[in-house]
Protein backbone atom coordinates (compact mmCIF):
# COMPACT_ATOMS: atom_id res chain seq x y z
CA UNK A 1 0.00 0.00 0.00
CA UNK A 2 1.28 3.44 -0.89
CA UNK A 3 -0.83 5.88 1.04
CA UNK A 4 -3.69 6.17 3.51
CA UNK A 5 -5.78 9.22 2.67
CA UNK A 6 -8.81 8.60 4.89
CA UNK A 7 -8.61 6.24 7.88
CA UNK A 8 -11.11 3.59 8.82
CA UNK A 9 -11.89 -0.07 9.32
CA UNK A 10 -14.36 -2.05 7.16
CA UNK A 11 -15.04 -5.49 5.72
CA UNK A 12 -16.74 -5.94 2.36
CA UNK A 13 -16.91 -7.31 -1.17
CA UNK A 14 -14.81 -5.82 -3.94
CA UNK A 15 -16.45 -4.10 -6.89
CA UNK A 16 -13.66 -3.40 -9.34
CA UNK A 17 -13.45 -1.14 -12.36
CA UNK A 18 -10.45 -0.95 -14.66
CA UNK A 19 -11.67 2.43 -15.94
CA UNK A 20 -11.60 5.68 -13.94
CA UNK A 21 -14.85 7.22 -12.65
CA UNK A 22 -16.22 10.73 -13.18
CA UNK A 23 -18.52 10.88 -10.14
CA UNK A 24 -20.44 13.92 -11.35
CA UNK A 25 -23.06 13.01 -13.87
CA UNK A 26 -22.20 9.31 -14.10
CA UNK A 27 -22.98 8.19 -10.52
CA UNK A 28 -26.56 8.71 -9.33
CA UNK A 29 -26.28 10.75 -6.14
CA UNK A 30 -29.28 9.07 -4.52
CA UNK A 31 -28.82 5.41 -5.51
CA UNK A 32 -25.09 5.10 -6.28
CA UNK A 33 -25.89 3.48 -9.65
CA UNK A 34 -23.55 4.18 -12.62
CA UNK A 35 -25.39 5.79 -15.57
CA UNK A 36 -22.60 6.05 -18.18
CA UNK A 37 -23.34 3.53 -20.96
CA UNK A 38 -19.68 3.46 -21.93
CA UNK A 39 -18.54 2.58 -18.40
CA UNK A 40 -17.82 -1.01 -17.45
CA UNK A 41 -19.90 -0.63 -14.26
CA UNK A 42 -22.94 0.66 -16.21
CA UNK A 43 -26.16 0.00 -14.25
CA UNK A 44 -24.22 -1.43 -11.28
CA UNK A 45 -24.58 0.11 -7.83
CA UNK A 46 -21.46 1.04 -5.88
CA UNK A 47 -23.46 1.02 -2.61
CA UNK A 48 -21.87 -0.91 0.28
CA UNK A 49 -19.04 -2.21 -1.92
CA UNK A 50 -15.32 -1.86 -1.47
CA UNK A 51 -14.90 0.14 -4.67
CA UNK A 52 -11.58 -0.51 -6.43
CA UNK A 53 -10.85 1.77 -9.41
CA UNK A 54 -7.85 3.58 -10.95
CA UNK A 55 -8.85 7.12 -9.90
CA UNK A 56 -11.53 9.77 -10.03
CA UNK A 57 -11.54 11.98 -13.13
CA UNK A 58 -13.36 14.98 -14.55
CA UNK A 59 -15.55 17.39 -12.66
CA UNK A 60 -14.51 18.95 -9.37
CA UNK A 61 -18.15 18.70 -8.23
CA UNK A 62 -17.79 14.92 -8.02
CA UNK A 63 -16.70 15.55 -4.41
CA UNK A 64 -20.29 16.63 -3.64
CA UNK A 65 -21.57 13.45 -5.35
CA UNK A 66 -19.46 11.36 -2.97
CA UNK A 67 -20.76 13.36 0.00
CA UNK A 68 -24.35 12.95 -1.33
CA UNK A 69 -24.21 9.18 -1.81
CA UNK A 70 -22.92 8.92 1.76
CA UNK A 71 -25.76 11.11 3.06
CA UNK A 72 -28.23 8.95 1.09
CA UNK A 73 -26.74 5.69 2.49
CA UNK A 74 -25.64 4.63 -1.00
CA UNK A 75 -21.90 5.04 -0.63
CA UNK A 76 -19.20 2.39 -0.92
CA UNK A 77 -17.86 1.10 2.44
CA UNK A 78 -14.35 2.08 1.31
CA UNK A 79 -12.47 3.08 -1.82
CA UNK A 80 -9.15 1.77 -3.10
CA UNK A 81 -7.40 3.67 -5.93
CA UNK A 82 -4.22 3.39 -7.96
CA UNK A 83 -3.75 7.14 -8.17
CA UNK A 84 -4.80 9.89 -5.79
CA UNK A 85 -7.05 12.65 -7.13
CA UNK A 86 -8.53 15.57 -5.27
CA UNK A 87 -12.18 14.93 -6.08
CA UNK A 88 -12.14 11.48 -4.49
CA UNK A 89 -9.69 12.41 -1.71
CA UNK A 90 -11.71 15.40 -0.46
CA UNK A 91 -15.11 13.76 -1.07
CA UNK A 92 -14.05 10.78 1.04
CA UNK A 93 -12.44 13.04 3.67
CA UNK A 94 -15.65 14.98 4.21
CA UNK A 95 -17.92 11.92 3.96
CA UNK A 96 -15.59 9.84 6.16
CA UNK A 97 -15.20 7.00 3.65
CA UNK A 98 -11.90 5.14 4.15
CA UNK A 99 -9.61 5.69 1.14
CA UNK A 100 -6.24 4.15 0.39
CA UNK A 101 -3.90 4.31 -2.59
CA UNK A 102 -2.24 1.03 -3.62
CA UNK A 103 0.61 0.02 -5.92
CA UNK A 104 -0.08 -1.15 -9.49
CA UNK A 105 0.80 -4.69 -8.41
CA UNK A 106 -1.67 -4.69 -5.52
CA UNK A 107 -4.29 -3.09 -7.75
CA UNK A 108 -4.08 -5.94 -10.26
CA UNK A 109 -4.30 -8.53 -7.45
CA UNK A 110 -7.85 -7.41 -6.55
CA UNK A 111 -10.78 -9.09 -8.26
CA UNK A 112 -14.54 -8.64 -8.32
CA UNK A 113 -16.32 -10.57 -5.61
CA UNK A 114 -13.34 -11.00 -3.28
CA UNK A 115 -14.13 -10.38 0.37
CA UNK A 116 -11.53 -8.16 2.00
CA UNK A 117 -10.92 -6.45 5.28
CA UNK A 118 -9.43 -3.00 5.41
CA UNK A 119 -8.01 -1.57 8.63
CA UNK A 120 -5.80 1.48 8.17
CA UNK A 121 -4.46 1.15 11.73
CA UNK A 122 -3.28 -2.43 11.22
CA UNK A 123 0.20 -3.54 10.15
CA UNK A 124 -1.33 -5.31 7.15
CA UNK A 125 -4.10 -2.88 6.28
CA UNK A 126 -5.62 -4.91 3.44
CA UNK A 127 -6.38 -8.62 3.89
CA UNK A 128 -8.13 -10.80 1.34
CA UNK A 129 -10.45 -13.03 3.39
CA UNK A 130 -11.89 -15.18 0.60
Amino acid at each position, binding site marked *: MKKILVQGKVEGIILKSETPINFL*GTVDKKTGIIS*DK*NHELFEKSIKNSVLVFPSGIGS*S*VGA*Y*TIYSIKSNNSAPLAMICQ*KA*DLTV*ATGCALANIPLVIVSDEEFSSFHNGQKISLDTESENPILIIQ
Partner: protein
Amino acid sequence: MELTREEESALKGEQGEIMQMAYRILVATGEATDAERLVPIEWAHLSGVNYNTIGDAGEELLSSISKNARVKVKTTLNPMGFDIDNVSNYNLDENFISKQLSIKNSYETMGVNLSFSCIPYEIFDIPKEGTQVAFAESNAAIHANSYDHLKTNKESSFSALASAITGKSPYSSLRKEDSPNLTIRMKVDNPNELTYGMLGFFAGKVGDTSVNISGLGEMDRRQCKAMCGGMGTSGTCAKFLFGEGDADCEKVDFDKKEMQNVHDELNTAEKGDLITLGSPQLGLEEMSDLTIMLKGRSFKKRCMIFCPRTVKEQARKIGYANKLERAGCEILSDCCTCLTPLINKDEIDAVTTNSIKGAFYLKNSNGVDVNLKPLSQIIEDETS
Protein backbone atom coordinates in the same frame (compact mmCIF):
# COMPACT_ATOMS: atom_id res chain seq x y z
CA MET B 1 2.64 17.29 5.44
CA GLU B 2 4.19 19.72 7.93
CA LEU B 3 1.73 22.04 9.63
CA THR B 4 2.46 25.17 11.64
CA ARG B 5 1.35 25.29 15.26
CA GLU B 6 -1.68 27.35 14.31
CA GLU B 7 -2.64 24.95 11.53
CA GLU B 8 -2.28 22.00 13.92
CA SER B 9 -4.56 23.68 16.40
CA ALA B 10 -7.18 24.26 13.70
CA LEU B 11 -6.97 20.60 12.67
CA LYS B 12 -7.54 19.55 16.30
CA GLY B 13 -10.71 21.62 16.39
CA GLU B 14 -9.44 24.37 18.67
CA GLN B 15 -10.62 27.03 16.20
CA GLY B 16 -14.11 25.62 15.72
CA GLU B 17 -15.76 22.94 13.64
CA ILE B 18 -15.60 24.82 10.33
CA MET B 19 -11.84 25.33 10.51
CA GLN B 20 -11.37 21.72 11.56
CA MET B 21 -13.37 20.55 8.54
CA ALA B 22 -11.43 22.88 6.23
CA TYR B 23 -8.05 21.68 7.52
CA ARG B 24 -9.12 18.04 7.30
CA ILE B 25 -9.87 18.62 3.62
CA LEU B 26 -6.58 20.47 3.08
CA VAL B 27 -4.61 17.68 4.76
CA ALA B 28 -6.29 15.04 2.55
CA THR B 29 -5.51 17.24 -0.46
CA GLY B 30 -1.90 17.64 0.64
CA GLU B 31 -1.41 13.93 1.27
CA ALA B 32 -3.00 13.10 -2.10
CA THR B 33 -0.61 15.44 -3.94
CA ASP B 34 2.52 14.80 -1.81
CA ALA B 35 2.71 18.41 -0.66
CA GLU B 36 5.05 19.20 2.22
CA ARG B 37 3.30 22.33 3.48
CA LEU B 38 0.49 24.83 2.93
CA VAL B 39 0.98 28.09 1.00
CA PRO B 40 -1.20 31.22 0.86
CA ILE B 41 -3.50 31.67 -2.12
CA GLU B 42 -4.98 34.93 -3.42
CA TRP B 43 -8.10 33.80 -5.23
CA ALA B 44 -10.46 30.84 -4.91
CA HIS B 45 -13.03 29.86 -7.53
CA LEU B 46 -15.72 27.52 -6.23
CA SER B 47 -17.73 24.82 -7.95
CA GLY B 48 -20.73 23.04 -6.44
CA VAL B 49 -23.42 25.66 -7.01
CA ASN B 50 -26.03 24.10 -9.27
CA TYR B 51 -28.74 22.34 -7.21
CA ASN B 52 -28.91 19.79 -10.03
CA THR B 53 -25.36 18.69 -9.19
CA ILE B 54 -25.06 19.00 -5.41
CA GLY B 55 -28.62 18.01 -4.47
CA ASP B 56 -30.20 18.16 -1.02
CA ALA B 57 -27.09 16.91 0.76
CA GLY B 58 -25.02 19.73 -0.75
CA GLU B 59 -27.68 22.36 -0.11
CA GLU B 60 -27.94 21.33 3.55
CA LEU B 61 -24.17 21.22 4.00
CA LEU B 62 -23.75 24.73 2.60
CA SER B 63 -26.65 26.07 4.62
CA SER B 64 -25.11 24.67 7.77
CA ILE B 65 -21.52 25.83 7.24
CA SER B 66 -22.59 29.29 6.04
CA LYS B 67 -23.78 30.02 9.59
CA ASN B 68 -20.15 30.35 10.65
CA ALA B 69 -17.85 30.13 7.63
CA ARG B 70 -16.54 33.29 5.96
CA VAL B 71 -14.13 33.43 3.02
CA LYS B 72 -10.69 34.92 3.68
CA VAL B 73 -9.65 35.71 0.08
CA LYS B 74 -11.31 36.87 -3.13
CA THR B 75 -13.74 34.05 -3.97
CA THR B 76 -15.78 33.68 -7.16
CA LEU B 77 -18.45 31.16 -8.08
CA ASN B 78 -19.45 28.67 -10.79
CA PRO B 79 -22.84 28.77 -12.60
CA MET B 80 -26.08 27.73 -10.90
CA GLY B 81 -29.10 26.01 -12.45
CA PHE B 82 -31.06 28.86 -14.07
CA ASP B 83 -31.27 32.55 -14.94
CA ILE B 84 -33.68 34.24 -12.53
CA ASP B 85 -34.63 36.75 -15.29
CA ASN B 86 -36.31 34.11 -17.45
CA VAL B 87 -36.71 31.05 -15.21
CA SER B 88 -40.51 31.30 -15.60
CA ASN B 89 -40.12 30.41 -19.32
CA TYR B 90 -38.77 27.01 -18.36
CA ASN B 91 -40.64 24.25 -16.68
CA LEU B 92 -38.75 24.20 -13.38
CA ASP B 93 -40.53 23.16 -10.20
CA GLU B 94 -40.81 25.37 -7.14
CA ASN B 95 -38.66 23.04 -5.05
CA PHE B 96 -35.73 23.39 -7.46
CA ILE B 97 -36.00 27.16 -7.46
CA SER B 98 -36.20 27.50 -3.68
CA LYS B 99 -33.32 25.04 -3.07
CA GLN B 100 -31.21 26.85 -5.67
CA LEU B 101 -31.91 30.21 -4.02
CA SER B 102 -30.94 28.74 -0.65
CA ILE B 103 -27.57 27.69 -2.13
CA LYS B 104 -27.12 31.17 -3.56
CA ASN B 105 -27.88 32.71 -0.15
CA SER B 106 -25.40 30.43 1.61
CA TYR B 107 -22.57 31.51 -0.69
CA GLU B 108 -23.57 35.15 -0.36
CA THR B 109 -23.54 34.86 3.45
CA MET B 110 -20.03 33.41 3.30
CA GLY B 111 -18.88 36.51 1.42
CA VAL B 112 -18.51 34.94 -2.03
CA ASN B 113 -18.77 37.10 -5.18
CA LEU B 114 -21.88 35.69 -6.91
CA SER B 115 -20.31 35.62 -10.39
CA PHE B 116 -22.08 32.38 -11.49
CA SER B 117 -19.53 31.82 -14.21
CA CYS B 118 -17.26 28.99 -15.32
CA ILE B 119 -14.95 31.43 -17.16
CA PRO B 120 -13.50 33.53 -14.30
CA TYR B 121 -10.32 33.94 -16.40
CA GLU B 122 -12.31 35.91 -18.96
CA ILE B 123 -14.42 38.20 -16.77
CA PHE B 124 -12.00 39.11 -13.95
CA ASP B 125 -8.56 40.73 -14.07
CA ILE B 126 -5.78 38.15 -14.07
CA PRO B 127 -3.30 38.62 -11.18
CA LYS B 128 0.42 38.81 -11.84
CA GLU B 129 2.33 35.84 -13.25
CA GLY B 130 2.92 32.99 -10.81
CA THR B 131 0.14 33.96 -8.38
CA GLN B 132 -1.18 31.00 -6.36
CA VAL B 133 -4.95 30.51 -6.77
CA ALA B 134 -7.38 27.63 -6.11
CA PHE B 135 -9.76 27.01 -9.02
CA ALA B 136 -12.25 24.17 -8.71
CA GLU B 137 -13.94 24.46 -12.13
CA SER B 138 -11.87 22.06 -14.21
CA ASN B 139 -11.77 24.10 -17.44
CA ALA B 140 -10.84 27.21 -15.44
CA ALA B 141 -8.01 25.44 -13.57
CA ILE B 142 -6.53 24.25 -16.87
CA HIS B 143 -6.95 27.68 -18.46
CA ALA B 144 -5.35 29.38 -15.44
CA ASN B 145 -2.31 27.06 -15.47
CA SER B 146 -1.85 26.87 -19.24
CA TYR B 147 -2.71 30.35 -20.55
CA ASP B 148 -2.90 32.76 -17.62
CA HIS B 149 0.41 31.85 -15.90
CA LEU B 150 -1.34 31.26 -12.57
CA LYS B 151 -0.76 28.27 -10.30
CA THR B 152 -3.54 25.97 -9.16
CA ASN B 153 -4.29 22.34 -8.49
CA LYS B 154 -7.18 20.79 -10.33
CA GLU B 155 -9.11 21.54 -7.16
CA SER B 156 -12.25 19.74 -6.08
CA SER B 157 -15.29 21.66 -4.86
CA PHE B 158 -14.25 20.91 -1.28
CA SER B 159 -10.54 21.70 -1.61
CA ALA B 160 -11.35 25.08 -3.20
CA LEU B 161 -13.92 25.81 -0.48
CA ALA B 162 -11.38 24.89 2.21
CA SER B 163 -8.85 27.19 0.52
CA ALA B 164 -11.38 30.04 0.37
CA ILE B 165 -12.09 29.70 4.10
CA THR B 166 -8.45 29.35 5.21
CA GLY B 167 -6.67 31.33 2.44
CA LYS B 168 -4.30 28.37 1.99
CA SER B 169 -3.68 25.39 -0.24
CA PRO B 170 -1.15 22.52 -0.24
CA TYR B 171 2.07 23.27 -2.12
CA SER B 172 1.54 20.46 -4.64
CA SER B 173 3.60 19.69 -7.74
CA LEU B 174 1.34 21.77 -10.01
CA ARG B 175 2.13 24.81 -7.89
CA LYS B 176 5.85 24.40 -8.53
CA GLU B 177 7.74 24.08 -11.80
CA ASP B 178 6.81 20.74 -13.26
CA SER B 179 7.86 18.90 -16.39
CA PRO B 180 5.34 16.53 -17.97
CA ASN B 181 6.48 13.03 -18.96
CA LEU B 182 4.14 12.81 -21.96
CA THR B 183 3.90 14.76 -25.22
CA ILE B 184 0.84 14.69 -27.47
CA ARG B 185 1.53 15.51 -31.10
CA MET B 186 -1.43 17.22 -32.73
CA LYS B 187 -1.61 15.84 -36.28
CA VAL B 188 -5.10 16.83 -37.45
CA ASP B 189 -5.15 19.49 -40.20
CA ASN B 190 -7.45 22.54 -40.23
CA PRO B 191 -8.75 22.10 -36.69
CA ASN B 192 -11.90 23.90 -35.54
CA GLU B 193 -13.10 24.30 -31.93
CA LEU B 194 -14.66 20.82 -31.97
CA THR B 195 -11.33 19.31 -33.02
CA TYR B 196 -9.62 21.10 -30.10
CA GLY B 197 -12.35 19.92 -27.73
CA MET B 198 -11.70 16.34 -28.84
CA LEU B 199 -7.93 16.85 -28.54
CA GLY B 200 -8.46 18.08 -24.97
CA PHE B 201 -10.69 15.09 -24.14
CA PHE B 202 -8.05 12.74 -25.56
CA ALA B 203 -5.22 14.53 -23.70
CA GLY B 204 -7.15 14.34 -20.44
CA LYS B 205 -7.51 10.58 -20.85
CA VAL B 206 -3.85 9.84 -21.56
CA GLY B 207 -2.18 12.58 -19.47
CA ASP B 208 -1.38 12.52 -15.77
CA THR B 209 -1.30 15.90 -14.00
CA SER B 210 0.20 17.79 -16.96
CA VAL B 211 1.09 17.16 -20.63
CA ASN B 212 3.06 18.79 -23.45
CA ILE B 213 1.12 19.36 -26.65
CA SER B 214 2.96 20.10 -29.89
CA GLY B 215 1.60 21.23 -33.26
CA LEU B 216 -1.14 23.43 -31.80
CA GLY B 217 -0.74 26.42 -34.12
CA GLU B 218 -2.61 29.68 -33.57
CA MET B 219 -5.75 29.15 -31.51
CA ASP B 220 -8.61 31.61 -31.09
CA ARG B 221 -10.41 32.03 -27.78
CA ARG B 222 -13.24 29.67 -28.67
CA GLN B 223 -10.73 26.94 -29.52
CA CYS B 224 -8.69 27.48 -26.31
CA LYS B 225 -11.81 27.23 -24.16
CA ALA B 226 -13.02 24.13 -26.02
CA MET B 227 -9.71 22.41 -25.37
CA CYS B 228 -9.69 23.29 -21.65
CA GLY B 229 -13.31 22.12 -21.35
CA GLY B 230 -12.62 18.79 -23.07
CA MET B 231 -9.48 18.13 -21.04
CA GLY B 232 -11.15 18.89 -17.72
CA THR B 233 -13.95 16.42 -18.44
CA SER B 234 -11.99 13.27 -19.16
CA GLY B 235 -9.11 13.11 -16.72
CA THR B 236 -7.00 14.45 -13.89
CA CYS B 237 -4.81 16.61 -16.13
CA ALA B 238 -4.69 20.26 -15.03
CA LYS B 239 -2.12 21.87 -17.28
CA PHE B 240 -0.65 21.72 -20.75
CA LEU B 241 2.58 23.20 -22.02
CA PHE B 242 3.09 24.20 -25.64
CA GLY B 243 5.76 22.24 -27.49
CA GLU B 244 7.57 18.92 -27.72
CA GLY B 245 8.95 18.88 -24.16
CA ASP B 246 12.11 16.98 -23.19
CA ALA B 247 13.60 14.46 -25.60
CA ASP B 248 12.90 11.56 -23.22
CA CYS B 249 9.16 12.33 -23.05
CA GLU B 250 6.88 9.57 -24.25
CA LYS B 251 5.18 10.69 -27.50
CA VAL B 252 1.56 10.01 -28.48
CA ASP B 253 -0.10 11.14 -31.70
CA PHE B 254 -3.53 12.69 -31.94
CA ASP B 255 -4.51 11.93 -35.51
CA LYS B 256 -7.77 11.24 -37.38
CA LYS B 257 -8.15 7.80 -35.78
CA GLU B 258 -7.86 9.10 -32.21
CA MET B 259 -10.24 11.94 -33.07
CA GLN B 260 -12.79 9.52 -34.54
CA ASN B 261 -12.71 7.46 -31.32
CA VAL B 262 -13.63 10.48 -29.21
CA HIS B 263 -16.30 11.48 -31.74
CA ASP B 264 -17.82 7.99 -31.71
CA GLU B 265 -17.90 7.99 -27.90
CA LEU B 266 -19.75 11.30 -27.59
CA ASN B 267 -21.72 11.80 -30.82
CA THR B 268 -24.87 9.68 -30.59
CA ALA B 269 -27.35 11.43 -32.92
CA GLU B 270 -27.52 12.65 -36.52
CA LYS B 271 -29.48 15.74 -35.58
CA GLY B 272 -30.73 17.59 -32.50
CA ASP B 273 -34.12 18.98 -31.42
CA LEU B 274 -32.43 22.06 -30.02
CA ILE B 275 -29.02 23.71 -30.04
CA THR B 276 -26.92 24.76 -27.06
CA LEU B 277 -23.87 27.02 -27.18
CA GLY B 278 -21.70 27.74 -24.18
CA SER B 279 -19.91 25.10 -22.17
CA PRO B 280 -17.73 26.77 -21.06
CA GLN B 281 -19.97 29.88 -21.10
CA LEU B 282 -19.55 32.34 -23.98
CA GLY B 283 -17.56 35.52 -23.40
CA LEU B 284 -18.25 38.89 -25.00
CA GLU B 285 -15.90 38.22 -27.91
CA GLU B 286 -17.79 35.03 -28.79
CA MET B 287 -21.15 36.84 -28.47
CA SER B 288 -19.81 39.42 -30.91
CA ASP B 289 -18.56 36.71 -33.32
CA LEU B 290 -21.88 34.94 -33.17
CA THR B 291 -23.77 38.17 -33.90
CA ILE B 292 -21.65 38.64 -37.03
CA MET B 293 -22.06 35.01 -38.13
CA LEU B 294 -25.85 35.25 -37.71
CA LYS B 295 -26.26 38.49 -39.66
CA GLY B 296 -29.34 38.16 -41.89
CA ARG B 297 -30.02 34.61 -40.65
CA SER B 298 -32.19 33.03 -38.00
CA PHE B 299 -32.36 29.66 -36.29
CA LYS B 300 -34.97 27.17 -37.48
CA LYS B 301 -35.14 25.58 -34.02
CA ARG B 302 -34.48 26.64 -30.42
CA CYS B 303 -30.94 27.77 -29.67
CA MET B 304 -29.91 28.29 -26.03
CA ILE B 305 -26.86 30.50 -25.40
CA PHE B 306 -25.16 30.42 -21.98
CA CYS B 307 -22.98 33.29 -20.72
CA PRO B 308 -22.04 35.10 -17.49
CA ARG B 309 -24.38 37.87 -16.28
CA THR B 310 -21.76 40.58 -16.85
CA VAL B 311 -21.41 39.42 -20.47
CA LYS B 312 -25.19 39.41 -20.98
CA GLU B 313 -25.41 42.96 -19.65
CA GLN B 314 -22.55 44.18 -21.86
CA ALA B 315 -24.03 42.37 -24.87
CA ARG B 316 -27.35 44.09 -24.17
CA LYS B 317 -25.73 47.54 -24.04
CA ILE B 318 -23.69 47.06 -27.20
CA GLY B 319 -26.69 45.65 -29.06
CA TYR B 320 -25.55 42.05 -29.61
CA ALA B 321 -28.23 40.63 -27.32
CA ASN B 322 -31.13 42.10 -29.29
CA LYS B 323 -29.66 40.92 -32.58
CA LEU B 324 -29.09 37.42 -31.21
CA GLU B 325 -32.63 37.26 -29.87
CA ARG B 326 -33.99 38.39 -33.25
CA ALA B 327 -32.03 35.47 -34.76
CA GLY B 328 -33.94 33.15 -32.45
CA CYS B 329 -31.42 32.72 -29.60
CA GLU B 330 -32.48 32.36 -25.96
CA ILE B 331 -29.80 34.10 -23.87
CA LEU B 332 -29.29 32.66 -20.38
CA SER B 333 -26.90 34.08 -17.82
CA ASP B 334 -25.76 32.64 -14.45
CA CYS B 335 -26.09 29.07 -15.76
CA CYS B 336 -24.47 26.70 -18.29
CA THR B 337 -25.13 23.82 -20.71
CA CYS B 338 -23.24 21.57 -18.36
CA LEU B 339 -25.69 19.83 -15.97
CA THR B 340 -28.53 22.19 -16.87
CA PRO B 341 -31.93 21.30 -15.39
CA LEU B 342 -33.52 23.22 -18.29
CA ILE B 343 -33.11 20.37 -20.78
CA ASN B 344 -35.30 17.42 -19.96
CA LYS B 345 -35.22 14.05 -21.70
CA ASP B 346 -39.01 13.78 -21.50
CA GLU B 347 -39.25 16.69 -23.93
CA ILE B 348 -35.96 16.55 -25.84
CA ASP B 349 -34.42 13.50 -27.53
CA ALA B 350 -31.20 15.02 -28.82
CA VAL B 351 -29.18 18.23 -28.54
CA THR B 352 -26.83 19.75 -31.12
CA THR B 353 -23.73 21.39 -29.63
CA ASN B 354 -20.10 22.23 -30.43
CA SER B 355 -19.01 21.48 -26.86
CA ILE B 356 -17.28 18.24 -25.91
CA LYS B 357 -17.71 19.04 -22.24
CA GLY B 358 -21.40 19.79 -22.77
CA ALA B 359 -21.82 16.58 -24.80
CA PHE B 360 -20.38 14.39 -22.04
CA TYR B 361 -22.72 15.71 -19.36
CA LEU B 362 -25.81 16.02 -21.59
CA LYS B 363 -25.39 12.37 -22.48
CA ASN B 364 -24.56 10.99 -19.05
CA SER B 365 -26.46 13.24 -16.69
CA ASN B 366 -29.39 14.64 -18.70
CA GLY B 367 -29.71 11.33 -20.57
CA VAL B 368 -30.25 12.93 -24.00
CA ASP B 369 -28.48 12.06 -27.25
CA VAL B 370 -25.92 14.47 -28.64
CA ASN B 371 -25.15 15.68 -32.16
CA LEU B 372 -21.69 17.24 -32.31
CA LYS B 373 -20.88 19.92 -34.88
CA PRO B 374 -18.55 22.93 -35.03
CA LEU B 375 -20.28 26.32 -34.78
CA SER B 376 -19.78 27.13 -38.48
CA GLN B 377 -21.57 23.90 -39.42
CA ILE B 378 -24.35 24.52 -36.90
CA ILE B 379 -25.01 27.90 -38.47
CA GLU B 380 -24.93 26.47 -41.99
CA ASP B 381 -27.31 23.60 -41.18
CA GLU B 382 -29.64 25.14 -38.63
CA THR B 383 -30.27 28.70 -39.81
CA SER B 384 -31.81 30.19 -42.92
